[in-house]
């Protein structure tokens, strides 16, 4: 189905200014607190994601995983603390600004524009871009990743199968030419076979040079492909380690990996 040789078009990477030093995280959260009304959701969360990494944030229900993503993107404003992209404080900027900076997200449950065609969904991904030639190249790249979408181009997104919708969701995110891709629960609502396929795909996207930050409940799966990870519990980062260490961590095994 997928061509394993699919490569991201060349011209897409050099355009981003290579200003970040090795110590400079691409995306960072500094002691962020977020409230929903009176509910304190995130408590002093610190995160740092470096260029080229594939990292994951683990946690159970209502641990604040999705809020972390929303805070990073600017859909939710933190009550204190800062969000930084390339060392620049973007806490009070719009989503649009952060998307222009190279952030994008594949939302939980895909959230496609179901009444629009697949083509329009992909085009919306590239909404902020005006480099038409590069857009065409990226579209070709998406078709290489998901050849099936090419036949579905003029079909309404809502009529596709779950797996195909997942492809459109990822394709839409890729069309914005992201530097860092945030994924909210990529395994949610998919059959085991599709989950496997999905995670292969994430690796492939990562291999093409895109930094990936995913939020997952399925810790085993996530850690199997991630470099590093954090564990979030009631809004606090309780563990911060490499994937290997986390997999071996007894407490984590007990609470998230189903080991008893």
């Amino acid at each position, binding site marked *: 189905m997928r061509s394993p040789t699919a490569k991201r078009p060349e011209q897409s990477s050099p355009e981003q200014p290579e200003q970040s030093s090795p110590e400079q995280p691409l995306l960072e959260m500094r002691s962020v607190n977020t409230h929903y009304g009176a509910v304190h959701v995130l408590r002093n969360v610190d995160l740092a994601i470096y260029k080229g990494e594939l990292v994951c944030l683990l946690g159970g229900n209502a641990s604040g995983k999705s809020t972390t993503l929303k805070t990073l*993107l600017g*859909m939710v404003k933190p009550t204190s603390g800062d969000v930084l992209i390339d060392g620049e404080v973007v806490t009070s900027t719009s*989503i*649009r600004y952060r*998307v*222009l900076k190279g952030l*994008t*997200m594949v*939302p939980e*449950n895909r*959230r496609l*524009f*179901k*009444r*629009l065609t697949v083509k*329009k969904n992909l*085009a*919306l*991904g590239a*909404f*902020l871009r005006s480099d038409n030639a590069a857009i065409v190249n990226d579209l070709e790249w998406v078709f290489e990743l998901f050849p099936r979408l090419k036949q579905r181009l003029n079909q309404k997104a*809502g*009529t596709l199968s*779950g797996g195909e919708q997942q492809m459109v969701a990822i394709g*839409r995110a890729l069309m*914005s030419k992201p530097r860092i891709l945030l994924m909210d629960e990529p395994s*949610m*609502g998919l059959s085991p076979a599709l989950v496997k396929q999905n995670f292969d795909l994430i690796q492939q996207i990562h291999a093409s040079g895109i930094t990936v930050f995913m939020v997952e409940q399925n810790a085993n799966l996530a850690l199997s492909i991630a470099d590093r990870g954090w564990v979030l519990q009631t809004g606090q980062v309780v563990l911060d380690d490499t994937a290997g260490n986390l997999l071996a961590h007894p407490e984590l095994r007990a609470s998230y990996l189903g080991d008893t």
Partner: protein
Amino acid sequence: MRTPRTGVDWFLTFLRLLLLGAATLGVLLFIVQQVYPDNLITRWVNPVSANLTASQFKGLLVSGLTQGAMYGLIALGYSMVYGVLGFINFAHGEVFMAGAMTGMIASNKLDDAGIWESNFLGSLAFVLAVAVATSTLAAIAMEKVAYRPLRNSPRLVLLITSVGMSFFIQNASLVLLGAKSKSYPRAAEWLNGNVGVIDVRGSRLLVIAVAGLSAVALWWLVERTKTGMAMRAVAEDAEIAALMGIKVNRTIVTVFAVGGAMAGVAGILWGLMFRSVTHSTGFLPGIKAFSAAVLGGIGHLGGAMTGGLIIGAAESVGPIVFFEPLGVQGATQLKDAVAFLVLVGVLLIRPSGLFGERLPAEDRV
């Protein structure tokens, strides 16, 4: 998916069948009567019912379609705003009235200067521009002042606010311009006569043509431009649209503006066709246009336009075609009833409107 039928289902089915039966009977009686004007049934049911000649029928149909084209243009605004914000902007009829009013003022100024007659098409374009600008601004101002502060309130709050806005604009017009009905100057002579082989009054053709062009322009905007894409994206999922980098607030303003512009066009066409405007001009067309939007499937633009044409044609043709053969006296007075009957009829059979789409339950988690 199959659910057991309940009493309500049976009742609805019965209603549908009854409705279809009545409609079919009306049509059949009408056709029979046209072919054999002196048949038994007609003589029994309604001895004085209508015998339409072809040109009379054409006249009816064209007049209905003209009216319907205006309904359709107004309906677009209802439909677009509903699509994006999920509430019925009842003040939209007043946006239409505002366009018609300013058009009246502008055209009378031109008429006083003698330009209206000497350069009719130029004047018309100017008046159209003025009216469209007014309606657009009115719609934008309304969004900013009344609806934006309530964006996160329940939809019912917005709905009530829109009713309030409607009264406010009507009364503002009453205070500023008085209660007397005001007239547009007479359109150019060639528009008042019947034109060409089709033998239809020129102004009616103009109305249909301008409405058609506006609809095509809107279609192009929505389907072929980035702005249109943004509008559709926001309509479907504002949060995700924002994630795509779309400026949601600006897109919503654009939606109001475009809806307002369409209402402005309708206002001028109204003025050309019916000439007189008052502060309450927006009320009934507004209600009819709203019905048209629902009939076509609210949120669907082609549906709004089609709904408008159907309601316009139905209220013009319907009474004579359906009610006179059934023996109803003074049938033409029932035209408003017919318009809403058509709406009810369509909704009974297709609850989401003609083009309204209900996607299969997709949000399986």
